[in-house]
């Protein structure tokens, strides 16, 4: 036999493509001051919600009520996949793209990040993190976005690492481990840059972990502080857990959605996840702080200043991780708005957590009742072993993690609403690390569902209009100074609504359902709207009636015709 042919050294797969491998240096000067004033550069989308207040509002108005009917795709980016990966059938393109001076940074499933020319769709560089395909994931192979600044792009990985990339070429700058994959922890949240820190939370609440929020030095990756959302015995809040048990060690309360931030108070408003086990409250008697809460966290120290718990002693999987939108009342009062999974809309004073107003924003609530003064009365819940219990909203909630938006021109908050119920049957089980820890069998309704976009006046609780659809709304809204609200829907259409009336003005079929957050931006005076599409994630939780819908992973970018 002859000598072996020399096959050489393996090369990067991207080298066998048209990927350039470099992007303009546009993020070096993106820092705390610029993000604080992000609304002054509406051509960019510098941070997850566009601004720290979580309003998801753009002052761009080139695309408006009069011309939106002419909106058309400018380019499409296809993510694609190679080989086996985790959640092979549950991946979803859930991110909100960021844009800085003509360069888009977006993450996809499976540890991928791209820098893309925001005007042409040309792939400038690509990064791929090797995520284990056996990592514990409750809700699919997803990632909700990146943070950019200090010349870097920051990403949480499925195996709970925080990584920083050189924004000019996608090369790794640091890689720190933030969680324990053997305990069932993972990472899906979009990081938030505040001051010289990167803020991230943990995922894994369905596996009985102890949720936490962490701050890292944005330059070095060194941890500054960690705040557990389940207190240890003796710490404030520990009295809401069994005194002599192990429940606090597995209590959940994960921080898997990006917090909002008030720079005047230097407070992060972090929503926390469900207690674990989700549906078996018998092993965790008490209110179970700080699960299902908004927790006001001092960004400098990680200390908790105040909290408000939306669903004490949760028995329905009602995470409160979704955003806490910050806005000011006409009288100057500093408020926070939160549409919870439990179907109630809360307005709080964000300086002290005092309840200002609470009212239902969905049609069907059977799990319990919250009075106008905030008193919670559970009514229907899995209690007896083996006895099925049906309740509304289902475990994905009247609104899941996907975000609402606030338009200061109308004073309205646009909420994507899911009307889907579920049946849970309590089944107690032992706790074992990395194994799902629900304490019930759960079947979300396959029929009798619908959805709508609700335009809510947060000052009165009045629903001004609703745009009803036969399917639940499972994607974030975006609102603009063009008088528009954008909403992607499960059947693949991306629609534009009149922000004042709810009238549908435009629609485009993207070919796969929406479960992401659209991003507005402009380059050289041309406005664009970008939206990742790709039906997936926790479909069995938020809309199992569409488990058979087409998957996908394309990013669509729309603009008005140039001529």
């Amino acid at each position, binding site marked *: 036999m002859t000598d072996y042919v020399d096959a050489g050294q393996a090369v990067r797969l991207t080298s066998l493509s048209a990927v350039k491998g470099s992007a303009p240096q546009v993020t070096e000067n993106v820092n705390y001051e610029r993000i604080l004033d992000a609304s002054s550069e509406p051509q960019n989308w510098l941070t997850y919600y566009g601004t720290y207040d979580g309003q998801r509002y753009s002052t761009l108005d080139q695309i408006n009520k009069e011309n939106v009917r002419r909106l058309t795709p400018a380019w499409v980016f296809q993510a694609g996949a190679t080989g086996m990966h985790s959640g092979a059938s549950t991946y979803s393109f859930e991110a909100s793209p960021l844009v800085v001076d003509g360069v888009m940074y977006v993450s996809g499933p499976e540890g991928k990040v791209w820098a893309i020319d925001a005007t042409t769709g040309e792939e400038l560089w690509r990064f791929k993190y090797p995520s284990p395909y056996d990592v514990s994931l409750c809700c699919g192979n997803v990632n909700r976005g990146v943070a950019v600044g200090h010349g870097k792009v920051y990403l949480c990985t499925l195996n709970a690492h925080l990584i920083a990339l050189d924004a000019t070429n996608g090369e790794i700058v640091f890689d720190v481990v933030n969680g*324990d994959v053997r305990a069932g922890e993972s990472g899906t949240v979009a990081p938030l840059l505040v001051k010289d820190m990167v803020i991230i939370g943990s995922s894994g609440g369905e596996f009985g972990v102890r949720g936490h929020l962490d701050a890292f030095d944005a330059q070095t990756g060194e941890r500054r502080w960690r705040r557990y959302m389940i207190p240890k015995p003796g710490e404030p809040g520990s009295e809401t857990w069994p005194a002599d048990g192990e429940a606090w060690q597995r209590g959940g309360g994960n921080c898997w959605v990006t917090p909002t931030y008030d720079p005047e108070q230097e407070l992060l408003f972090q929503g926390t996840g469900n207690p674990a086990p989700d549906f078996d409250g018998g092993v965790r008697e008490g209110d179970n702080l700080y699960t299902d809460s908004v927790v006001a966290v001092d960004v400098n120290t990680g200390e908790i200043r105040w909290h408000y718990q939306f669903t004490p002693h949760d028995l329905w999987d009602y995470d409160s991780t979704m955003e806490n939108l910050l806005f000011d009342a006409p009288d100057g009062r500093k408020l926070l708005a939160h549409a919870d999974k439990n179907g109630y809309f809360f307005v709080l004073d964000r300086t002290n957590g005092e309840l200002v107003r609470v009212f239902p924003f969905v049609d069907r609530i059977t799990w319990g009742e919250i009075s106008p003064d905030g008193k919670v009365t559970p009514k229907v819940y899995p209690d007896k072993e083996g006895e099925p219990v049906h309740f509304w909203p289902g475990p994905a909630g009247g609104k899941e993690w996907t975000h609402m938006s606030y338009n200061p021109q109308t004073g309205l908050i646009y909420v994507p609403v899911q009307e889907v119920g579920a049946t849970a049957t309590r089944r107690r089980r032992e706790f074992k690390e*990395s194994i799902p820890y629900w304490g019930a069998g759960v079947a979300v309704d396959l029929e009798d569902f619908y959805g709508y976009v609700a335009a809510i006046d947060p000052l009165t609780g009045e629903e001004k209009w609703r745009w009803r659809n036969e399917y639940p709304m499972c994607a974030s809204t975006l609102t603009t100074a063009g008088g528009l609200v954008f909403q992607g829907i499960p059947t693949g259409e991306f629609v534009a609504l009149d922000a004042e009336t709810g009238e549908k003005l435009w629609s485009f079929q993207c070919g796969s359902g929406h479960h992401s957050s659209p991003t507005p931006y402009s380059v050289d005076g041309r406005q664009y709207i970008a939206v990742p599409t790709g039906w997936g994630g926790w479909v069995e939780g938020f809309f199992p009636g569409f488990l058979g819908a087409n998957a996908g992973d394309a990013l669509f970018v729309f603009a008005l015709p140039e001529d």
Partner: protein
Amino acid sequence: MTTTSSDRSDQLDEAGLAIQNRLALGRQLGTGNIGHAEEDSDGRMRATIRIPEDELVWDPAIIILPHGGELELTLINDDKNTHCAVLPTIGDHLIIWLVNHSKGTATLNLPGPGTYWYGSTTGNDEGRGLTGAIVIGGEVPAEAKLDRPAQPRP
């Protein structure tokens, strides 16, 4: 490099699942041998995988690493057909083309515990049997663990 076997491999052989076009059309995934990477004193790891003639399987198909880090992998194609290897590493997939009777190398950098796919992505090599796994053992660093007492595992 060491390999292990068990009664299960005998059962797979008897059933015709560990050979091409006997019971199934291809070789059942996950039926190949198991190998352990060798570790140098500096923590770097080395392993060799090869493709035997007409078996459409990596040997070993499962490579066990004691921890994350750098793996120097030697790939040998002893088959009389052309294949390739797409491999995981931090930053991108790596690819190496493996013509008949060829030998090459790949340097992988992998993070912590878990299972990482690799395979030959030409034709349906992946479905016929050329799908492998790199399995990293060990624990995450102490500073990344939850602050709680040790918990039961399955």
